[in-house]
C-alpha cells in the first residue's frame, strides 16, 4: 500500500502499540540549557541512568551572550543555567559543544550542520522549533521537559499518531521570494492552529527548488502553523548536503544509508488526511503586522480592518494586536518605520540567509532612524564561513553589528532585546507580545526584507531595490 513519508518513518520506530498509543524509539536527542535541567534532576532523583548517551548532542544557545565571550556570562541567572548544562554533560559524559567551542550555535543549526540530523531518524529536543530537522526527511518534533526526561531514561516517547497533511506548493516563486515568505504565506492561509494534530509534509516544485537551508526555514515554521512536525522528502539535495559531515556515515555505511534514504519520500498515490495547494507564483514578500504569525500580509498591502473579520474572536484579537503594535488598520506596510533590525534565529541564520542579506546591504548604509541592526550567525561555523566570504565586513561597513552565535533577540533570554514600544524587523519566528522584550513590537520577515528595511528605515519591497 502506498504510504506517506510520515507513516514510513513512524512505522520503523514502533517498539510497541497499545490501543493506538505507541511507544516509539528515538534516534537523536538534542539538548539545550533551558528545558533540560529539571529533566536531569528528575533522572538523578529517581536514580535512573541515561539509556543511550551517544544519541545526545548538547549545546547552550538561549542564554549565551552574543558579544565578547571572554568575560563569560555576566547575568548570574543565565550563567547558572549554562553551568548546569555543563555539569550535567560532564556527569553523564555527553557530547556537548560548549559556549567557546567554535562549533557552538543554535541547536537547530548545528544538528544538520554536523550531520547529526539524518533522514529517517526520529529527532526530539525540548524546543518547539525541532520541526526544523524534518527538512531532511526525518520525524523531528519538540517535546516538553517531562518528555526530555522520558527520552533520557527510556530512549522512547509515548505518542499517538499525527494526522497527515500535504501542503503542495507548485509553480515558480518570484525573485527574492524566500522560504520564509512561503512559510508566512502558508500560515496566513491556514492559521496558527491550522496544523494542530497534523504532521505536515511540504511538497511540490517550489519545495524541490528550495535549498536545504530554505527547507529548514520552512519546516522550522511548521510549528507556527500549529504542527509539531514538518517534513520534506529526501532528494539529491538532501544527500549532497549531508555528505562528509562529521556525524554523517562514511565509506560503505554511507552507500548503504543513501540507498535506504532514497525510499524516504511519500509514495505516489499515498493518502493524506488533508491536502492544501498553494501557488508559489503569487506569493509576495510577507510582513507580519500583528502579534501572531497568522497576522501577515504582502509588502504592498495595507493592515486589514478588524471589523471585516468574520469571527468575533478574530475581531477582538485583531484590535488588541493593533493596539499592542501601535498600528492602525489601513496603514500601508511600506509606511511602517522601524527602530531595530534582527537577522538571526533558528529560522534564518544559516550561511545562505547571511549571503542574501549581505547582498542587499552591500555598499549601502543602515538608515539613520535604525538604532541597532544585529546579525547573529546561527553557529560558530556559519560565522567562520561568512567571514571567509567577507560578509562580516559588508555588514559592519553598512552599520550592522556582527555578533557571536546564539538565539539572541529571537526570544531575548540574553542581553539582546527590544525596549518598550521599539519596533523591529526580525527574521525570527514569533511575533508574540513581549517575545523580543517586554512591550517590544516584532514584524517577521525574510532576511532579504530585513536587510532592505535596515537600509530604508522602513519596510520596502526588496524586489524594487536596484
Amino acid at each position: 500500500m502506498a504510504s506517506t513519508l510520515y507513516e514510513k518513518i513512524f512505522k520503523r520506530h514502533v517498539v510497541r502499540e497499545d490501543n493506538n498509543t505507541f511507544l516509539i524509539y528515538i534516534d537523536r536527542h538534542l539538548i539545550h540549557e533551558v528545558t533540560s535541567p529539571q529533566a536531569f534532576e528528575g533522572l538523578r532523583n529517581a536514580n535512573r541512568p541515561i539509556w543511550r548517551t551517544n544519541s545526545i548532542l548538547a549545546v547552550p544557545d538561549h542564554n549565551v551572550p552574543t558579544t565578547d565571550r571572554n568575560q563569560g556570562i555576566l547575568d548570574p541567572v543565565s550563567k547558572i543555567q549554562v553551568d548546569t548544562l555543563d555539569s550535567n554533560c560532564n556527569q553523564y559524559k555527553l557530547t556537548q559543544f560548549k559556549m567557546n567551542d567554535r562549533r557552538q550555535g543554535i541547536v537547530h543549526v548545528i544538528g544538520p550542520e554536523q550531520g547529526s540530523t539524518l533522514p529517517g531518524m526520529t529527532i526530539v529536543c525540548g524546543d518547539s522549533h525541532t520541526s526544523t530537522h524534518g527538512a531532511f526527511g526525518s520525524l523531528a518534533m519538540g517535546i516538553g521537559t517531562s518528555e526530555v526526561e522520558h527520552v533520557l531514561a527510556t530512549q522512547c516517547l509515548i505518542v499517538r499518531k499525527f494526522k497527515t497533511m500535504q501542503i503542495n506548493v507548485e509553480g515558480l516563486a518570484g525573485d527574492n521570494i524566500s522560504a520564509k515568505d512561503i512559510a508566512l504565506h502558508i500560515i496566513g492561509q491556514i492559521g496558527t492552529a491550522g496544523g494542530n494534530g497534523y504532521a505536515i509534509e511540504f511538497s511540490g516544485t517550489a519545495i524541490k527548488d528550495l535549498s536545504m537551508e530554505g527547507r529548514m526555514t520552512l519546516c522550522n515554521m511548521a510549528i507556527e502553523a500549529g504542527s509539531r512536525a514538518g517534513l520534506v522528502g529526501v532528494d539529491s539535495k538532501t544527500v549532497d548536503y549531508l555528505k562528509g559531515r562529521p556525524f554523517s556515515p562514511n565509506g560503505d555505511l554511507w552507500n548503504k544509508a543513501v540507498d535506504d534514504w532514497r525510499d524516504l519520500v511519500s509514495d505516489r498515490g499515498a493518502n493524506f488526511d488533508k491536502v492544501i495547494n498553494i501557488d508559489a507564483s503569487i506569493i509576495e514578500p510577507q510582513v507580519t503586522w500583528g502579534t501572531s504569525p497568522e497576522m501577515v500580509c504582502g509588502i504592498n498591502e495595507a493592515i486589514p480592518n478588524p471589523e471585516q473579520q468574520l469571527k468575533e474572536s478574530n475581531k477582538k484579537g485583531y484590535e488588541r494586536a493593533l493596539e499592542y503594535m501601535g498600528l492602525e488598520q489601513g496603514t500601508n506596510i511600506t509606511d511602517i518605520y522601524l527602530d531595530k533590525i534582527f537577522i538571526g534565529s533558528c529560522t534564518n541564520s544559516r550561511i545562505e540567509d547571511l549571503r542574501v542579506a549581505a547582498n542587499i546591504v552591500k555598499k549601502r548604509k543602515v538608515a539613520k532612524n535604525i538604532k541597532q541592526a544585529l546579525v547573529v550567525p546561527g553557529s560558530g561555523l556559519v560565522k567562520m564561513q561568512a567571514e571567509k566570504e567577507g560578509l562580516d565586513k559588508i555588514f559592519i561597513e553598512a552599520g550592522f553589528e556582527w555578533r557571536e552565535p546564539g538565539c539572541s533577540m529571537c526570544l531575548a533570554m540574553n542581553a539582546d532585546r527590544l525596549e518598550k514600544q521599539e519596533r523591529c524587523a526580525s527574521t525570527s519566528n514569533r511575533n508574540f507580545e513581549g517575545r523580543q522584550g517586554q512591550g517590544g513590537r516584532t514584524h517577521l520577515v525574510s532576511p532579504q526584507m530585513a536587510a532592505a528595511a535596515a537600509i530604508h528605515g522602513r519596510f520596502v519591497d526588496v524586489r524594487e531595490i536596484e
Partner: protein
Amino acid sequence: MLPIIKHEGIVIPLDRSNVDTDAIIPKQFLKSIKKSGFGPNLFDEWRYLDQGEPGKESVVRIINPEFVLNKPQYKNGTILLARENFGCGSSREHAPWALLDFGIRIILAPSFADIFYGNCFKNGILPIPINKNLTDTFFEKAESEEGLRLNIDLENQKIVDGSDGYSFDIDTFKKYCLLEGLDEIDLTLKHKADIKNFENNYHSQFPWLTK
C-alpha cells in the same frame, strides 16, 4: 504527579484566543533550573504593570487591576477558561508549571496547541476541549456577577454545571495516568526488554544510526 479524579472550582474567564506560552510565562523566568515557584509570574506581562525579573518579589510589583486574575472574585479560581488554540508557541513546560503553581488544575478551551496539551497531562493539569457554544455559555456565566463554579468528573468524563452535565472526550491512556497520578517513565521501563530487543534489531538494520 498529582492525580485528578474529581475537581470543583471557580472558573476564571480569560477572554483571549491564541494565548501563547510566552504570555503564560515570559522568557526571563525560564532561567530557573527548578520546576516550582513560577506561580507569581504566571501571565506576568498582563498581570503586572511593571517589568518582571527573576527574584523580584511579587509584593513590590504594580498590579494591573484590569487583568482577570487580579479581580477579587477570581482570586481563588482553579479552572481557567480561554478561547481557541490555547498554549501555542514554545514547548516550555514552565507554562504548565506556572499554571499549576498558581493553582490551576483544569483548563477549558475550544482547542489547544499540541505540545502544551501533552505537557499539561505530565503535570496533573487536565485540559478539556469544549465546543464553541459551551465556551460562550461558560464565558457569559463566569463573567456574570454570580460567577461560575464547575464540577469536573474525570472518571465519568463529565463537566457538571449545577443540574447540567456535559461529557468530554479524552485519550484512554492519558485519563488512566491522570486518575492514578502515574509516572510514565516507570510505565515505559516495564517494557525494558522490548525496547532492548527493538534497539538491537533496529541497529542491525540501520547500522549508521548507532552513533
